[in-house]
């Protein structure tokens, strides 16, 4: 009978805190009179905040038989994920109330999914990674379908689920193959053995399948097809949350697997990832051009951003990795912010999803319009927003890395120009005077049926994200320094 191993629970304290919060939410929800659901939000936020504290305090180190590692990457990834989750919580309640979706499970699922993302950042074992991935995904499937009565929401759920399961099949087979070659699923061991079997077909296929599994979550073309439909169908706050948290998880994992673990074998995968990045940037932006639904537009934009992020992963220098993490942080903020704007709006009692629904927003709520415009600028990567710093960082790293990087960077900036068109179109609609054509059927006599739902929480989310984007755009030094130093640890 072997003794129980040491269990460094301090290492996984942040995850435990969030998990605890989730369970508490579940329990409280059971015997809570449906008036005081605010406490659930409070608990969730408290959990997330606590986890952040603990996480920043927790020591570096590995544990659980090398499966779990807490290093700079973990720390940054988890912090970003937690922040994104907090925003996700903030934007939810008012919307859920408006559409009678108030249920404690929402927060439970959200929190658990966050735990999944956090563990993806920390996994150093492929099986562990697989389970983290599922912990991230399964709640998202449910969140997508959270508005059960709405057939669109159901459709989002089933599509996301079906394709997700399909993709994880591929991922798993990849794990199996790598296990077959190396006899282990630990990333460090894997790297060591693969260094010998550099030319092994199995290894190549295995790694490739991993890319597909993670690429699916990250919505890389051609594994992105679920994203637009799911975002559109899912309830707004759910879409907001999944659009960022899934990306964070997936990309931190990609960084962990490729630059960090397989950095030595970059020659093998850099080209492939580069091609993927290029296709993703191009397709994502082009498709977004033609969208009339705000959610779909953001969906494709998130695809495009995945492309930019992947440029960083491909470049794989410490500088690039730092840039990717920065980008994730900025994206988390501006992405949620962009969704939050729409969540605060309602057109004739519908959720305001058509871009035209925002006509005359400036006349109705100038400040909101300005904030919205601000997020659009940031998403488009124009100075002086965080979006610019993020993109600049990635492309700069790419250019530093040499000709291939330059090519990617050029594709990147040119496609960003395309993106400017559809982002500014939204801003333009908001600021332009509501012309006759903009009026939506059933508009009240007051001109437009645009209603703004002032909710302190959503406003808080808007303010925080907007300021974060500003901070990253104007005074990014400290954040970048931190991330840079973190990236310095990887080598």
């Amino acid at each position, binding site marked *: 009978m072997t003794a129980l191993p040491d269990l460094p629970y301090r290492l996984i304290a942040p995850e435990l805190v969030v998990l605890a919060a989730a369970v508490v939410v579940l329990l409280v929800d059971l015997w809570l009179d449906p008036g005081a659901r605010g406490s659930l939000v409070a608990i969730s936020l408290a959990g997330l905040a606590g986890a952040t504290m603990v996480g920043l305090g927790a020591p570096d180190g590995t544990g659980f038989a090398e499966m779990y590692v807490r290093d700079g990457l973990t720390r940054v990834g988890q912090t970003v994920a937690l922040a994104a989750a907090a925003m996700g919580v903030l934007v939810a309640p008012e919307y859920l109330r408006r559409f009678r979706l108030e249920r404690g499970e929402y927060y439970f699922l959200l929190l658990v999914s966050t735990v999944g993302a956090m563990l993806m950042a920390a996994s150093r074992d492929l099986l562990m990674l697989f389970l983290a991935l599922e912990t991230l995904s399964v709640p998202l499937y449910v969140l997508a379908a959270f508005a059960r009565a709405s057939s669109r929401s159901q459709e989002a759920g089933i*599509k996301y689920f079906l*394709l997700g399961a399909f993709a994880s099949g591929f991922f798993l087979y990849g794990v199996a193959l790598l296990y077959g070659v190396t006899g282990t699923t630990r990333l460090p061991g894997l790297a060591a053995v693969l260094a010998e079997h550099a030319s092994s077909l199995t290894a190549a296929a295995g790694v*490739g399948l991993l890319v*597909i599994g993670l690429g699916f979550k990250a919505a890389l073309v*051609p594994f992105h*097809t679920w994203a637009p*439909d799911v975002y559109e169908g899912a309830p707004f706050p759910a879409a907001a949350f999944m659009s960022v948290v899934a990306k964070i998880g997936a990309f931190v994992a990609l960084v962990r697997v490729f630059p960090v673990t397989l950095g030595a074998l970059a020659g093998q995968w850099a080209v492939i990832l580069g091609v*993927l990045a290029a296709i993703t940037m191009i397709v994502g932006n*082009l498709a977004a051009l033609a969208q009339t639904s705000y959610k779909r537009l953001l969906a494709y934009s998130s695809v495009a951003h995945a492309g930019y992020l992947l440029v960083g992963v491909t470049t794989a220098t410490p500088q690039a990795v730092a840039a990717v993490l920065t980008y994730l942080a900025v994206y988390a903020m501006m992405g949620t912010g962009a969704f939050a704007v729409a969540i605060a709006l309602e057109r004739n009692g519908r959720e305001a999803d058509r871009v035209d629904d925002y006509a005359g927003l400036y006349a109705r709520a100038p400040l909101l319009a300005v904030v919205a415009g601000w997020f659009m600028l940031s998403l488009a990567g124009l100075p002086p927003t965080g979006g610019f710093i993020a993109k600049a960082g990635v492309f700069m790293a790419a250019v530093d890395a040499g000709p291939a990087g330059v090519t990617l960077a050029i594709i990147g900036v040119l496609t960003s120009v395309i993106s400017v068109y559809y982002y500014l179109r939204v801003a333009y609609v908001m600021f332009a005077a509501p012309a006759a054509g903009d009026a939506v059927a059933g508009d009240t006599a007051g001109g437009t049926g645009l209603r703004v739902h002032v909710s302190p929480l959503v406003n808080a989310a808007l303010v925080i994200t907007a300021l974060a984007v500003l901070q990253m755009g104007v005074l990014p030094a400290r954040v970048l320094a931190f991330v840079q130093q973190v990236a310095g640890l990887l080598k």
Partner: protein
Amino acid sequence: MPTAALLLLWPLAGWLVNGLVGRFLPRWLPGVVASAATGASLVTALTLLVAHQRAAPVEGARAAVVPLFSWFGAGGLAVDASLLVDALSLTMALVVSGVGFLIHVYSIGYMAHDPHPSRYFAYLNLFVFAMLLLVGAGNLLVLFVGWELVGVCSYLLIGFWFERPVAAAAGRKAFIVNRIGDAAFLLGLFLLFTALGTLDITAIRAGAAQLPAGIATTAALLLFAGATGKSAQLPLHVWLPDAMEGPTPVSALIHAATMVTAGVFMIARLNELFVAAPAALGVVATVGALTAFYAATIALRQHDLKRVLAYSTISQLGYMFVAMGALASAVGIFHLVTHAFFKALLFLAAGSVMHAMHDVIDMRRLGGLARPLRWTAAGFGIGALALAGVPPFAGFFSKDLILEEAFVLGTTTGNYLPYGLGLLTAFVTAVYITRAAALTFFGRPADPDAHPHEASPTMLGPMALLAVLSAGGGLLGARVAGEPLLRFLHTVLPVHEAAGASHPPAALLIVLSVLAAVSGIAVGALAHRGRRDLGLGRLGTFLEQRWYVDAVYDAVIVRPCHAMGRWLAGPVDLGVIDGVVNAVGRSLAVAGGRVRQLQTGYARQYALALLIGTVVLLGLWMLR
């Protein structure tokens, strides 16, 4: 403040006064102000002359440079606005301010009923200022400033009655044609600067001799091209006849007496440069001669009295260029002066005719005016005789000298064309001016119930003075009088004894030119007795259509350019250049639509996409 500066300041002040507050003054005042300003300049010019004479004996060449201020500089270039006071500039200044003053006075009467006197006189003063700046400039660039400014003034004054589209168009034409010349002038200027490193006229004159022949010739020709624009020589003469749309005094001052002579003056001013460029001189003389003849013939068949005078001006300017080309700058200037007198006189007379006939100027509708307008007629007569070159009137002396010099040119260079054409032109000149006089003043009035009345003293006075000058001005250059003007000018424009110049049989030449003049008058008088006008058949229409030059320009230059503009603006700019830009945008949008169609909404198909992606990706990966 140097006295020379006052020369410019008076009209400048007059311009500012009339331009800024003129509208609020009583309508008679602007004219007085303007005339006073010009008069003051005249006085200043005279005092300068006196000072200049006192400074030293006539023979010794003297040029006083009066620095005003440093305009601008960059790198090696330094442009200092300065005035150059010497015999040449003084002569010109006197002519400009003198004739200018008379015409100002005349205008007071002539424009008495015009609604915008202040604007008119403001322009007039501005012109005088610009012209004085031109003639007084000590720096080639400053000269160019005046050169352009007079162009603007002429644009403004030709188009003074801009309600009439014809006038507006004429003004524009004048400015643009001048601009073409000016462009060439600028290039010449650049060449001089790059070659000599300065634009100071004195320095250029000093350095010209050392210039390589090629550069000197090129520069001279470029500058001459500028002169053809300003002085209405072939091929840039087309604007001057149209300029007659302006008020008649303007035609007298600008388009006869002063501005158009700027080209001649400029060549005199840069005499040494042209001396250094014999080839260019040949061109100058030839172009001058051709222009003289060409314009004279056209004058034969014009019906508009002022147009007759306009072509006559072009023709006479041709004479001056012949003189310049013959290296007889002083003579050229002499003719410039006399021409200023009699041509101004003729125009003023024509003006008084218009005034009397309520702006009718078509000679076919005039006639028999000698009786009602006897003073005017007398003035016109004197001017005509002077123009025809009948001794002892002013024109005789100057033109005769020019012909002599042209003959000398022939003997030295073998190029007798200038002399031949010159002589022939003398005859034609006599004919057309006689015709004009006959049709206008003699015979039976075309319109019996018109009751013309003689002009006011303010108009007759200047005419009288000019008549005197036209009659006696010849003395300035007459050998009998000891050629005071010529000797005066020789201090700046020395006589160039060309190699192998055999002295011409002066007496014979005089006889010839007098013969040409007299016979011309006779022919003219006989041909147009009783105001019948001979049509000369085909030739007549050919001349009447000004040798079709304007038509050709219109067809070959103006229309094609405009058409090209439309073509470039439409098919090229919007069609191709902008088309490409828009095409890019559109193709992107289309691509976006395509990509969007791939998103069919069928989960199975998404799964297929995923599988295909996987196959391709793994394929690439493993095949590598």
